[in-house]
């Protein structure tokens, strides 16, 4: 199966894997390995990028990259956890057109920085509600205050 092969190729980078059912699989990966794994998924195996969901939790900033393997109905979630203070990850937009907007959106709403994104600035045409303020960030009691 595709997944076993993927796990073999990226044995070191895949930290954790969880399969809820045959059609829903989540792999927690090393953020540094996102680009090679995504390229492999997209170019070699023919996965389709659906979307990425960012969340802000106590662990830091998490992003789920959702991929679909059409024809089998498999949804593969690549899960990365980023640093609480300085969330940064390599951008995929140089490889795929389809991640361009969502990365800008996450940059805008969560303040996650995407390295080497072709055009990260000027996110909103008018920054009237999201300049210097990230509406989707949360505040947690136990943590020291998150810089917003």
């Amino acid at each position: 199966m595709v997944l076993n092969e993927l796990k073999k190729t990226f044995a070191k980078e895949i930290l954790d894997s969880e399969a809820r059912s045959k059609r829903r699989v989540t792999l927690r990966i090393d953020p540094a390995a996102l680009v090679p794994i995504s390229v492999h998924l997209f170019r070699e195996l023919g996965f389709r990028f659906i979307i990425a969901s960012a969340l802000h939790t106590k662990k830091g900033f998490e992003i789920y990259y959702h991929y679909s393997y059409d024809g089998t109905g498999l949804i593969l979630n690549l899960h990365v956890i980023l640093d609480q203070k300085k969330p940064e990850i390599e951008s995929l937009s140089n490889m795929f057109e389809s991640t361009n907007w969502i990365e800008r959106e996450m940059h805008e709403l969560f303040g996650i920085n995407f390295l080497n994104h072709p055009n990260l600035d000027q996110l909103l045409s008018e920054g009237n509600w999201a300049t210097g303020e990230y509406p989707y960030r949360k505040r947690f009691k136990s943590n020291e205050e998150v810089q917003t």
Partner: protein
Amino acid sequence: MGFKSYCFKKSLWLFHFGGASCNNCDIEILDCLTPRYDLERFGMLLVGSIRHADVLLVNGSINKKDKPRLLEIYEQAPKPVLVVAIGACGCTGGIFAEGYTFAGPVDNIIPVDAYIPGCPPKPEAILAGIVKLLGKN
């Protein structure tokens, strides 16, 4: 007959401003033009520019980006102009009123002459609202 009612005596031309809506109200307005409801039999016409219009139909909650544009469009309208707020969103902000981009229901921004509630209001309701508005003037 006052000046205002004189202005609105004959065929009214409508201009549609869709704010941050869910698009249903927009579609129901367009629906008014199609064979079943046929707004045009009252001489009403949806026009492409506010400069030609007598009535401004506003639907949807107004977000921070729409607000200056709505004001601008209102300023461009030849006066007197009637403003109709359509849908729950247009009247009060509806389900989106708690959102972080919400900039106030239509009547906080420009004076409104008629409210047509509903989510979305049926085309009949829109027609009835506009006809009532005409009776008022």
